[in-house]
């Protein structure tokens, strides 16, 4: 009686352990499978032309995605220039003044929610406020929608990193008579500098791979950018159009774009992880 019960308990236990190990294995297999396909199909497409040439019509050989690479870089950097100052200031409020008050809690929750909000709706919103009023798609509209997606991530990262700075450091500065803003600038931001930089890099990498918000804002273009005030080529929308096209050479270029995006985003992720973990292991 007791034996059969023990046996049953042990059996269930083994069963669950095996299933859960298989689940973890499945996760690894999927990562290797996706990365494997992206590398196998994408790496061969990458050559010098890929980075220097404009796209060519289907059927013609050669051509690259140089304009799209430049477009994605420019729009992402412009988005970071807009979102980072606002996000750092708002994050500072949350960490320094809004820890427990109602307004702080509200902003914190709202940021958390907006981190996961559907990016395509942000695209629709920016279309309405910028593309529709200006009358044309533009790189600016694209970078504004990327900035809106980046903002909540920057806010929460800044808050977390500032909170890691020990209270004693703040108190010693304040005890020496430093005004609060001075203490923030010279002590807290300095101490949190590396963490904030890496967190912001992560936010930028996350947004660089976004497609949905660009579909109706920057749209796409087969030409070099002349200004940010016109439709702008970018890697993700190009990838989308090329992958959905019936042409083999365009589909191959799409794999090349997927390779470039995936490798860049994963590299940023791995490097930031290494920096953060080496920072933490120090006493």
């Amino acid at each position, binding site marked *: 009686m007791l034996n059969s019960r023990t046996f049953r308990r042990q059996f269930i236990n083994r069963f669950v352990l095996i299933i859960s190990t298989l689940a973890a294995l499945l*996760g690894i297999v999927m990562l290797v499978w996706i990365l494997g396909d992206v590398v196998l199909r994408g790496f061969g497409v990458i050559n010098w032309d890929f980075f220097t040439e404009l796209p060519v019509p289907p059927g013609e050989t050669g051509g690259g995605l140089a304009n799209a690479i430049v477009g994605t870089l420019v729009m992402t950097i412009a988005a970071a220039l807009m979102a980072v100052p606002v996000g750092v200031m708002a994050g500072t409020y949350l960490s320094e003044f809004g820890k427990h008050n109602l307004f702080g809690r509200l902003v914190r929750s709202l940021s958390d929610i907006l981190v996961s909000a559907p*990016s395509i709706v942000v695209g629709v919103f920016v279309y309405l406020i910028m593309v529709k009023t200006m009358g044309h798609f533009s790189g600016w509209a694209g970078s504004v929608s990327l900035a809106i997606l980046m903002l909540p991530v920057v806010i929460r990262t800044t808050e977390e990193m500032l909170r890691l700075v020990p209270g004693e450091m703040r108190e010693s500065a304040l005890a020496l008579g430093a005004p609060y803003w001075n203490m923030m600038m010279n002590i807290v931001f300095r101490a949190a500098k590396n963490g904030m930089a890496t967190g912001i890099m992560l936010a930028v990498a996350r947004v660089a791979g976004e497609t*949905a918000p660009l579909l109706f804002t920057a749209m796409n273009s087969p030409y070099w950018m002349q200004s940010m005030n016109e439709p702008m080529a970018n890697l993700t929308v190009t990838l*989308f159009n090329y992958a959905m096209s019936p042409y083999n050479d365009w589909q191959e270029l799409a794999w090349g774009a997927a390779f470039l995006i995936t490798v860049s985003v994963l590299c940023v992720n791995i490097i930031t992880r290494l920096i953060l973990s080496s920072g933490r292991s120090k006493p």
Partner: protein
Amino acid sequence: MTTASSGRSGFTADKLFRLLTAAFAAFIAILFIVMLGVLWHESQPAIDKFGFSFLTSSDWNPVSNEYGALIAIIGTLLTTLVAMLVALPVSLGIALFLAEISPYWLRKPVGTAIELLAAIPSIVYGMWGLFVVVPIMADTVQPWLYDHFSFMPLFSTPPIGIGILTAGLVLALMIIPFIASITRDVFLMCPQNLKESAYGLGATNWEVVKDVMIPYGIKGIVGAIFLGLGRALGETMAVTFVIGNAYHLSWSLLAPGNSIASTLANEFTEADGKLYTSALIELGLVLFLITFIVLSLAEFWLHSTNKKRGA
């Protein structure tokens, strides 16, 4: 004298600093309200014309200018349901493995691998789904389902590779890393002495998980599930590639369909006419409201675990 005045100027500068940061913090709240307001305002033509029947009509026809969101809403819910059914057990399994079963040296690399899965942009998932998953579904999985289960309405249409089921599976793959890594963190919050007391009483690993760790972290786990749900509902690119972009009401998971997000991605730039655009904007508003509610619940539950950890 000088110290006093500099002290006072420091005081006002501090006030200014505080106000300035508060203004930037208010910016995101204002942004949210403006977003809601603009979407609401711009979807007025469709709301005036169709009223509540927008949500219950399955007629989406740009030619006759009739718009009902039902097919897109059902498509969104069905793909999400498939995704959750697959993702939940797998993510809980992964979290359990990472928190309790795995040897220590393996935890970091496996955990990192799962988190890296979350970093891959969704368009790469979508493209990979189209070129890799769809052929497998079309040649192997769906014909088998159709041959054996076509008497069920769920599998009653001929296999074509793309469709609700494929979209749900790709979506599952996308949200597994989110749910798994948060659930692992929740499991790790469980105090060691609680677990050890259970082990001391002779409990097996599974019994410790089932009777100690899950009850202890239940709010966090529910929060993680809702976060995955919110992500799945609003995901665009992973779904748009493989859902098939078709409008007919069908209970079959093998049939092509449309979700709210994929409808927007496919049609928004091509929409001509005020009513068409406004109906699409109303779809966006509906999606925004649904995900907002789901994500608020996620935030509520995840937040209450943080409090518990602090206490």
